[in-house]
């Protein structure tokens, strides 16, 4: 071994020192280049990560033939809590929701976009979860649940979410944050998700199930 390191260029210390430097530098440069592009594409207001005012619209998650997975679809105007917000009002509300999510440490029980803890359901598409009952009661159910989940057990294991001292204002903001998050294009994660029925009429419900309707306005 000792001889090998001195005789062959491919086993020499100086060769690998140069390789280490060049490979690291090249990788870092490529990463920085990609980072500029990625950061531009995930700034709120783009195609993949929508503007915060998206909460003024219906958001759905529908199979897209071309991409071969589900994508968020921005539907007709359907303001959160029945009041349409300006871009800056919406941004402020979602911001408050995000602060609440951080200050209450939601991610040490839940995953968001699949990252976090595994003790409670993923919240990426919580806004679209059929377990809220129906579209009509969803907003109110969410607020009540967040403010005091301790007596609203939804599973057979007895695993409850604790009461985290969330005020009504914080709960509303958190719902706004969750609604906004559900509109992010996540390349089809979670797969095979079954969203709550948001159709206004039975006819629309039928149309909604077909991919053709989905192609009308996918976010991409």
């Amino acid at each position, binding site marked *: 071994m000792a001889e090998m390191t001195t005789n062959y260029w491919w086993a020499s210390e100086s060769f690998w020192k140069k390789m280490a430097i060049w490979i690291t530098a090249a990788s870092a440069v490529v990463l920085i280049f990609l980072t500029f592009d990625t950061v531009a594409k995930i700034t709120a207001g783009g195609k993949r990560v929508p503007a915060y005012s998206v909460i003024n619209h219906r958001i759905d998650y529908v199979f897209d033939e071309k991409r071969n997975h589900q994508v968020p679809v921005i539907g007709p105007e359907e303001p959160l809590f029945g009041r349409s917000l300006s871009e800056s009002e919406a941004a402020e509300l979602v911001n408050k929701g995000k602060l609440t999510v951080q200050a209450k440490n939601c991610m040490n029980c839940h995953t968001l*976009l699949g990252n976090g803890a595994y003790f409670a359901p993923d919240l990426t598409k919580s806004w679209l979860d059929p377990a809220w009952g129906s579209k009509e009661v969803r907003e109110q159910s969410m607020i009540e649940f967040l403010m005091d989940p301790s007596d609203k057990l939804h599973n057979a294991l007895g695993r409850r979410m604790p009461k985290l001292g969330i005020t009504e204002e914080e709960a509303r903001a958190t719902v706004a944050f969750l609604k906004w998050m559900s509109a992010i294009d996540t390349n089809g*994660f979670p797969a095979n998700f079954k969203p709550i029925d948001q159709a206004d009429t039975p006819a629309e419900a039928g149309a909604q199930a077909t991919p053709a309707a989905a192609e009308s306005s996918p976010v991409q």
Partner: protein
Amino acid sequence: MASLGVLDSANLNGGQKLAVKYFTVAIALFGAQVLFGLLAGLQYLYPDFLYGVLDFSVNRMLHINALVVWLLFGFIGAVYWLLEDESGVPVVGLALGNLVFWVLTLAVVVVVGIYLLVQVGPGEMKSIWLINEGREYIEAPRWADIGIVVCMLAFFYNVAATFMKGRFTGIGGVLVLDLVALAGLYTAGMWYTPNISMDQHWWWWVIHLWVEATWEVLVGCLLAYGLIKTMGVRRKIVETWLYIEVALLFGSGILGLGHHYFWIGTPEYWLAIGGFFSALEPIPLVAMVVHAVFDAGHHKLKSTNNPALAWMIAQAFGNFFGAGVWGFMHTLPQINLYTHGTQWTASHGHLAFFGAYATIVIAFVYLAVQKWRGNVWMSGELVGAWRWKWAIFLLHVGMIGMTMALLIAGYEQSQIERAIEGSGWMGYFAAQAHPWFQQGMTWRMISGWVFAAGFLLLAWDLLTIGSRESRPARRLEPQEAMAVS
């Protein structure tokens, strides 16, 4: 020099006196990590246990923060341990180093107090500043972030200035550059944004580029030093390997970052880039196993410190299996779509952190207690050797047991929650309630108790090993000893 087998700081150089302080806190925090891990694990089985008092989120936050902090303390300690040896001169700013140690330790105590007693705050910026940032692994509030950065700068100054005053070995050069990157990356995780995609994008810069790039290289340096120290492996061999490792680790790990950019809103090109480069990440880990095992075999396992060598070999394999194999198994997007955010991830996280990082810190603590006791005998037929052997055995049985239990739970979850049910609220609980999942949680707990027993034995051993020895440490053969100086 005090008599052999007695703990006496006169046996240590300046940097090493500081190192053992860091090691002491590190092992105490390791104990805290195990304790809060057990509490969190129990809450999977008994959801009402400590409900509303120490909720799962609190226990888990303490579990993983204690992990990150004890490893960082262990790394800082290990660097101070080798600094005077490698550079050939006393640590430049030892008084500053001591001050930083006390500041950091005090900050840790305060933060733990806040986590336990305050737990959560209102949804306002002041909670982020004062209480907790709610972002996995780097929850520490912003005041602590700033303190950590200042302390890291002081630490970095000490290391760089000492090498500059003395000599820059290959290990020293790689170490200094790596520490710049490691500390710099931390600042990527300090900022607030309402945009969850942007948030996670930068969060992974810290988490991934730490554990799969800069920490790995740091461990490469520590291992290089450890192999020279315990077996007298020639410096030229060790340093050539170190450069190979750096090239392969950074060459795969930097762009491998993309395996966390599949589903968080980031563009589709990451599916290909992340999948490809992260699939290469096991290669350097294989190289590291070959290196350690080859050297150990070459020196016929004759070492000056058997427990340290055993933990270094455990590191090579643990890194390879935990990071390399367990990481590879879920790193391609086609698979990760279903395993993402399940117990699968937890299985990998446990084996990788333990195998790659806990092991090397423990190895260094064994190096430290040996010298602290006057460079006492720690080779074959050590008095009371059963303790370190049983400790390493129980810790591994416990860890492998937990990993396997979580893996089975994770498979079940990928199948039922992710693939079939589509990850809704009810789908999640359909998977959680399944007997295979529940059995997984039970076995994780049983294995967790085994692990905890191993920890207690380890702590006892670290306090006592060598105390009943009066033989001086095994001497390296003359040609081995030459490599060390």
